[in-house]
């Protein structure tokens, strides 16, 4: 195994493992059964990390899935496996054993994919396609005014929202006649998140800020003041906070007590001069995982401001982080091609 020589004191060294694959990591996901993680790379590979072999990188496998970068990754509709989209204009299904099945091949990059147990949504150019859980049947194709840059389903899987130029389009997955609910705001929206209680949709914008819409009445929310473009945003499990990258700390916007309008954001885990590059909220507790551009990864508690370092620097910009469905395990990947996994439930 070609593990990185980390500090012995790092939690990653005692409770996890890492391996350098060399190609920048673009995305990470965990299967619905929580038994396998997958990470995609710029060279089209999927790295499969079985939870049973979390601390043993020799059990991690690399699958050649795409020609060109893996652009997006989501859990499959079933218990096992993954869905991936790539620069080769393909949408693929990856089995836990590494089997690759092509579900779509078109003329545009497959840039976004999302799933629920019942549906797959993916985008290629301006089109968002909804398929059934088998991935074989196209239920509908939804047109947008410009290229789709992000897709989310709401918690119940009833609505799907897509970000693009000048706003977001919200659609009902099961509608017999498709009518869009447009949420408009001028500019380029580059990423999207939905409040777990369905209260709001938030996008990251090209110009170093966020834009949000309250879904009850379409009211606009502006969240600005970032020194960098926000590339990663994640709501906490109960929707109280929206965690984002884009500053030299985790930025948290309050979605309670009338916020975020007129409320300043809270900052957690400031690393002066080192920018946060990826965030992921824990699925079961009030914890945010954050990765930084120097390769540092840490967990921060939203209530107490307590911070637990996982590893410190030396791994390249953290591009993606992902928890298992119950939050006991986590993986992350970096632009230097480091893949790491950690068991957070272990009591040694």
């Amino acid at each position, binding site marked *: 195994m070609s593990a990185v020589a980390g500090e012995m004191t790092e939690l990653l060294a005692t409770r996890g493992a890492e391996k350098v694959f060399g190609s920048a990591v673009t995305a990470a996901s965990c299967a619905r059964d929580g038994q396998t993680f997958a990470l995609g790379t*710029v060279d089209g590979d999927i790295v499969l990390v079985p939870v049973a072999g979390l601390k043993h990188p020799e059990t991690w496998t690399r699958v050649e899935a795409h020609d060109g970068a893996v652009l997006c990754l989501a859990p499959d509709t079933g218990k096992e496996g993954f869905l991936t989209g790539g620069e080769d204009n393909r949408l693929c299904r990856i089995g836990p054993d590494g089997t690759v099945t092509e579900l779509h091949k078109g003329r545009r990059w497959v840039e976004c994919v999302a799933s629920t147990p019942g549906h797959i949504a993916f985008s290629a150019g301006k089109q968002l396609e909804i398929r059934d859980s088998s991935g074989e049947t196209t239920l509908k194709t939804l047109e947008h005014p*410009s290229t789709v840059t992000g897709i989310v389903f709401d918690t119940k899987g009833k609505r799907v929202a897509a970000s693009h130029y000048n706003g977001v389009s919200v659609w009902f997955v099961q509608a017999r006649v498709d009518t869009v609910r447009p949420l408009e705001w*001028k500019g*380029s929206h580059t990423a999207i998140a939905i409040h777990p209680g369905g209260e709001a949709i938030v996008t990251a914008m090209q110009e170093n800020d966020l834009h949000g819409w309250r879904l009850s009445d379409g009211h606009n929310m502006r969240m600005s003041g970032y020194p960098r473009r926000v590339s990663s945003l994640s709501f906490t499990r109960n929707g109280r906070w929206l965690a984002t990258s884009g500053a030299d700390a985790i930025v948290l916007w309050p979605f309670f007590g009338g916020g975020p309008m007129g409320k300043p954001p809270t900052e957690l885990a400031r690393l002066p001069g080192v920018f946060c590059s990826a965030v992921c909220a824990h699925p079961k507790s009030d914890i945010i995982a954050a990765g930084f551009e120097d390769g540092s990864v840490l967990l921060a508690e939203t209530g107490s401001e307590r911070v637990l370092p996982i590893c410190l620097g030396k791994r390249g910009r953290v591009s993606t982080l992902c928890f298992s469905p119950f939050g006991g395990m986590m993986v992350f990947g970096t632009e230097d091609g480091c893949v790491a996994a950690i068991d957070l439930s272990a009591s040694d």
Partner: protein
Amino acid sequence: MSETKIPVTVLTGFLGAGKTTLLNHILSAGHGRKYAVLVNEFGELGVDGDLVVDADEEVFETNNGCICCTVRGDLIRILGSLLRRRNKFDGIIVETTGLADPAPVAQTFFVDDNLREKARLDAVVTVVDAFNVSRTLDESHEAVSQIAFADVIVLNKTDLLDEAALEAVEARLRGINASVKIHRACHGKIALENVLDRGGFDLARALETMPDFLENNEHTHEEGVTSMSFSVSEPLDEQRFQAWIGALLQERGADILRAKGILHFAGQKERFAFQAVHMMADGDYIGPARAEEGQESRIVFIGRDLNRPQLRRGFESCRA
């Protein structure tokens, strides 16, 4: 100018001018270099080893509310993704559609931090059909823009005109853009070093060779688009220059299509290469001047309704 940045060549030109022929010539030239090419319509491209990506020209206005501050979001997305691969490309070529305004493409490289960090706009290359260009310029606002924006013009189909007619065409092109480098060609055949990897606009040489005789020839043709250059022989005060150019671009940026300069700031050994597209400006130190070049600073403006006395007074007031 960091050499680790990947050079980006923007290829513009009207429909039928020979853009696709030139692109095929570039890709099949056996130079041993690998290019990523962004095209708008799949043509007969796709030489082995080159990566051709089909893109839609998606322009958006930045949210400062100004109509000239437009950017290509598709470039930010696609190049952002391609540039994550390391050591995979020697260069990137962006082909625009015939009617496209080159400004949003160029401005994209000023606006996006990620692209600024990893790539540099090498040159805007405009392919011009020598035979039809006069009529095209009379009829089309976009054609004038494409000439005004060019660092390099490939004057194609030169076999269809005699020398006198070619000289007339070149004079008209220089009336719009006095600092452009014009290469004659037919069937898109041109030495690649004239087009690719020009090393950051080749600014010093372009300004050096800019013919002065055209400067007094202030056309009101071509919708008032013309170019003016100014020079001062004493070093400039950097802060005063930044304040002046900042205010000028803010106020007149919509009409200033491009500005480029090679500047000597007082107390700096290295020359400063300055460039702007409409309101967006950028600059870099590019190393010391050669002895024979002296301390002269030169700046050129290409735009509409330029006010020569005002620009001259402004530039001269930046002297240290």
